């Protein structure tokens, strides 16, 4: 790398450069702009600096320095998070883990692999695919998101319905605690390490309890057979009922995805159209996998249920190529909104699956109330909704209206006993909405745990929990670095 002498008198920058080297730190404003937000772009703030450590020791030294000097800091992977977990709201030192991207160990006999946090999710599957194995959690951003970030957010994906989310696949972690101390939990993948389940607590803690520097994950063997069904419906209600009936018939699909008319309009206008009819109200993408001898029976059951609910057209993928096209169309669905709207805001509520029809009706009502289109593209089998509120940020007040509409969608989920986030995390975005589902005492019980790990609250402060006293934060303009 080109050597670039440090041109600042800031002793902190100099000290951090001393740890990672002069080529592995950014501190000039023009270099920092790319790090002022992540996949959630409503709030922005420049970090104090971005450092790129190359080892656990360097991460520990950085953290130790920040801890001693009371500098707030946070970890960042690929920056694909959708709830603002990696936004340096307080001018944090951003610890980018993108250089720690090695695949350290693969042990197929014991079905596990050890990776560094910056290793990209899909690369893991690609590394073991030739032997017939894969890494199950598959967020839509899997081609670029990192496994470290997946751990922080407890990332999900389309195939979590059958195989579980990130936390179900983490066997061990090496963690730099907010004090700079390094601990190892679960060692080389031994199940149930004695003591409280810190693996479970750390996974999904949104980078507020520690920085993960090494991850032991479970690998799965590819299913012997896989079949994918695409079903078009004239009524949303019929599609919802089909979802409900598939689940209660005792079928566990590998994935069960739904898109409504607005979403279909967008994906068909974007990069991966597959020729869905424009006039259908909803489509379902259903995948079953498992032992080949049992697949046909499952597919037949699914087709029967679809027909019972007046499906307009239903087809089974005839080739891997066709299946891949259907999935590319679905997985790029959020980005496809750009084809029909200047801006969009994605929400992430979860509901009991049987309440799907009524909550979708409620979301349609919210859309009408706010005069904003809302597309729905989501993991129907999990009850994990992703209402996409379409808006135009250049119109005065529309961003605020979109945020309010999104929040109302979450309220509708909470009202039927659901949750405000199924896989994107709370971050900055849904801090206040935590109150829709938790009491003050329950939030206190959680922050009490944070205090055990992160006593000075320097690691990713201001995330995940509502501001005491309910002062709603308004949109913040970018501020210069201190």
């Amino acid at each position, binding site marked *: 790398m080109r050597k670039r002498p440090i041109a600042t008198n800031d002793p902190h920058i100099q000290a951090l450069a001393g740890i990672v080297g002069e080529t592995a730190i950014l501190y000039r404003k023009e270099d920092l702009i790319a790090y002022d937000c992540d996949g959630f772009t409503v709030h922005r703030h420049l970090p104090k600096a971005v450092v790129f450590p190359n080892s656990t020791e360097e991460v520990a030294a950085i953290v130790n320095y920040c801890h001693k000097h009371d500098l707030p800091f946070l970890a960042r992977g690929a920056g694909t998070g959708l709830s603002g977990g990696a936004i340096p709201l307080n001018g944090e030192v951003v610890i980018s883990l993108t250089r720690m991207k090695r695949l350290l160990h693969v042990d*197929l*006999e*014991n079905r596990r692999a050890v990776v560094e946090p910056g290793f990209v999710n899909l690369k893991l599957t690609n590394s073991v695919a030739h032997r*017939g194995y894969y890494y199950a959690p598959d967020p839509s951003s899997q081609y670029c998101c990192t496994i470290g970030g997946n751990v922080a957010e*407890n990332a*999900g994906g389309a195939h*979590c319905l059958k195989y*579980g*989310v990130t*936390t*179900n696949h983490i066997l061990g972690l090496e963690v730099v605690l907010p004090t700079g101390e390094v*601990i190892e939990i679960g060692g*080389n*993948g*031994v*199940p149930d*390490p*004695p003591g*409280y*389940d*810190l693996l*479970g*607590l750390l996974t999904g*803690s949104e980078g507020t*309890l520690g920085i993960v520097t090494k991850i032991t994950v479970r690998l799965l063997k*590819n*299913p012997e057979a896989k079949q994918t069904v695409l079903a078009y419906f004239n009524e949303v209600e019929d599609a919802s009922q089909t979802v409900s009936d598939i689940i*209660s018939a005792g*079928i*566990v699909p590998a994935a069960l995805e739904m898109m409504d008319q607005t979403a279909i309009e967008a994906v068909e206008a974007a990069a991966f159209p597959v020729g869905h009819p424009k006039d259908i109200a909803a489509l379902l993408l259903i995948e079953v996998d498992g*032992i*080949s*001898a*049992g697949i046909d*029976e*499952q597919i037949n059951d699914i087709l029967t249920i679809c027909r019972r609910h007046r499906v307009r057209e239903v087809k089974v993928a005839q080739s891997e190529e066709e299946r891949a096209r259907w999935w590319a169309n679905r997985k790029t669905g959020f980005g496809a909104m750009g084809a029909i709207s200047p801006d969009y805001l994605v929400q992430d509520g*979860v509901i*009991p*699956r049987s309440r799907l029809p009524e909550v979708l009706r409620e979301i349609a009502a919210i859309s009408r109330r706010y005069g904003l289109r809302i597309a729905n593209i989501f993991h129907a089998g*999990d*009850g*994990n909704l992703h209402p996409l509120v379409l808006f135009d940020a250049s119109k005065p007040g529309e961003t605020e209206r979109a945020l309010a509409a999104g929040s109302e969608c979450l309220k509708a989920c909470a009202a039927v*006993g*659901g949750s*405000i986030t*199924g896989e*994107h*995390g*709370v971050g900055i975005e849904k801090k206040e909405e*935590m109150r829709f*589902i938790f*009491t003050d005492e*329950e939030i206190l*019980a959680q922050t*009490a745990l944070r*205090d*055990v*790990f992160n006593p000075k609250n320097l690691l990713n402060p201001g995330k*995940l*929990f509502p501001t005491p006293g309910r002062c709603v934060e308004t949109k913040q303009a970018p501020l210069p670095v201190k």
Partner: protein
Amino acid sequence: MLSLAWIEELQAFLHPEQIKRNETFHPLGNDGAVTVYPQTEEEIAAVLRYADRHGKKVAIAGRGTKRGFGGQRAQADILLSLERYAGIVEHAAADMTVTVKAGTVFGELQRALAPYRQKVALDPFWPEEATIGGVIAANDSGPKRLGYGSARDSVIGLRVVYPDGTVIRSGGKVVKNVAGYDMNKLFIGAMGTLGVLSEITFKLRPLAKYESVVLLSFPSGDLHDIRSFAVSFLDTMMEPVCFELLNPALAERLTGRPVYTLVIGFEDVESAVHYQEQWVERLRPQTAEMAVFAGTEASAFWRTFYTVAPNGRLAPAENGVEAAVKIGVVNLDVLSVLRESALIADRCHVRLEAHGGLSHGLCQAYVRGGEKDVLTAIEELRQTAVRLGGYAVVKHLPFSLRQRIDVWGAKPSYVFLLEGIKRKVDPNKTVNDQRFIGGI
């Protein structure tokens, strides 16, 4: 003897019938000067609030199958029994979730779900006696963990009564949820040291349409044969729900033949189950013998299997003592643990029955013999586990012997975090004091 006049004070919030003074104490310890039987969450909270304010120690129990698991106290002041706090709170069949009270017997819950063709995907020991609360608090799981996962994969929500009487909910009733910290995980396997689990919500799985158990016995006793069969079978795309190796001593008890035996379970539609059985047939070594049990025979096999572990409700062994040890290693290292266990049995003059999952890495060893021999065998099992990078935890042992051995093994380097969590949640060490690792 200290005055027990305070027991009268419990009548402020419990009916006299819910309070029982104890004259003698259980040989497994974890008893109480008085046993209380709350019937509502409010009563649980009232007991804890009273104890927390008055410096009383509370031991928590379901039906007592795990009374011999951990604990450095013969008796607490109050034994809080959840026996009368049982039943299904809500079964949302269409959502495939169920919420139950902690004192519900595991098998009773499964029977209530069966008409809906649903189940909790867990296979704990002693399902007809163990309560849900105990299974979750002790994080118990059986051989089908391979296919089912463990409690942390099935529990989606909890109501926990904190030691100060506050009720905290974690998770919820939806199958996917990342709002806030994943607090469910904290209470699973916490041995009741962070409060009383009041209600537990599970996500459910459909009952399999068909099930079979393949017993593959290896009279040659050659562990290399077993290993290479295991590696090649697990590399196929078959989906066994269990792949558990029994050592000869345990195989003798379960099948009548004292040879290493693999228990391979399949649950799927019938055609898929038979198809997988054929794969076993095709890949098995010449010398291995195969038997298949299906339907009621398979159920009968499992019913017996789940009663091989010691049970704190049963009368103690007449001759010598009985111990259960849970050993965690990396999957295939289970073979080394089982091989070593045979040598340990010989060296220590104990009977040692053991089984372990070659694709989940947990072993259970049941040791019977003289006091000193059993303790030595436990030590040696632990050394074996630690040498393999794993651990050994004693799940069952009489109280007197628990004082002579470290039930939990060495403290992890991060024990200060565990202590910190305990301090935040239970600063007065009111609930299940000294029941857990590091004296927590």
